[in-house]
């Protein structure tokens, strides 16, 4: 690993830490409660929204980058694209787990249930399972070239579940609020996006995007180290 790259990664780590601190401060201290929510429990739980949107960005980026890296791998057959794809899926799954967990915890005081088979929740759970299956598929294949090829094809098709999840609250009847580009009159626990709420949401989304980029750098380095070991083993054999 080059020293220059290590410095870049350290710089990104520091920026991510600062961005996360600002996002947390804004979400927990700076932003006022949503005006239309009536009970203290609902008002406090609404602050989960900023975290929920942030981890959503992490998951979305994880799966989008996998989609792009999978196409790039199939076109170029360069190993680095496969490394980026698997690293990004792993991060996407971690963030998607956080999306489901934070959403479920927020749903309890808002919808009076931890889980409901609403179109958004169902499609989000399907996305999560699809990408866990991606990791299982990789684990089941021995040959590295075959593994990379199969995973790339899977990574491209699996991605179509992501825009479907995004659009599910716009296309189907749901109780999940529509935050970006629209509204849902049947939503339960929705709130108006005032300037301070909008700004805090935006800062949280940017902070998680930076965190995703920093973690991706470290995860790809892990893949590169593992490959260096394989090469050394081949030399020794």
């Amino acid at each position, binding site marked *: 690993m080059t020293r220059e790259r290590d410095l870049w990664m350290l710089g990104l780590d520091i920026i991510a830490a600062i961005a996360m601190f600002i996002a947390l401060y804004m979400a927990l201290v700076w932003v006022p409660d949503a005006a239309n929510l009536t009970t203290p429990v609902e008002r*406090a739980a609404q602050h989960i929204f900023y*975290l929920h949107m942030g981890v959503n960005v992490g998951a979305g980026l994880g799966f989008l980058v996998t989609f792009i890296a999978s196409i790039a791998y199939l076109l170029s057959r360069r190993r680095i694209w496969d490394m980026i794809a698997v690293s990004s899926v792993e991060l996407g799954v*971690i963030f998607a787990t956080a999306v489901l*967990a934070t959403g479920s*915890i927020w749903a309890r*005081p808002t919808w009076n249930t931890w889980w409901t088979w609403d179109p958004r929740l169902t499609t989000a759970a399907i996305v999560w399972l699809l990408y866990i299956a991606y990791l299982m598929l990789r684990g089941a294949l021995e040959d590295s070239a075959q593994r990379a090829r199969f995973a790339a094809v899977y990574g491209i098709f699996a991605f179509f579940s992501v825009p479907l999840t995004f659009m599910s609250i716009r296309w189907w009847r749901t109780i999940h609020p529509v935050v970006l580009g629209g509204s849902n009159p049947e939503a339960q626990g929705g709130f108006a996006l005032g300037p301070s709420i909008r700004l805090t949401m935006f800062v949280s989304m940017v902070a998680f995007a930076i965190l995703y980029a920093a973690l991706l750098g*470290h995860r790809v380095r892990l893949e590169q180290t593992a490959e260096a*070991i394989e090469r*050394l*083993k081949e030399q020794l054999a």
Partner: protein
Amino acid sequence: MEESVEYLAGAFAVAWLLVFGYVLMMARRQRRLEQDIALLRETLQNRQQD
């Protein structure tokens, strides 16, 4: 803990445990792999000297 912040605290705890747990796991994997690389390089060097 007050009931009003129970859910908020729970959501933040779960999300950050996931992220920090993953970072910790990555750091451990990286350290183990670097130890393996050092060992393999040493073995290779010894073999070339012999």
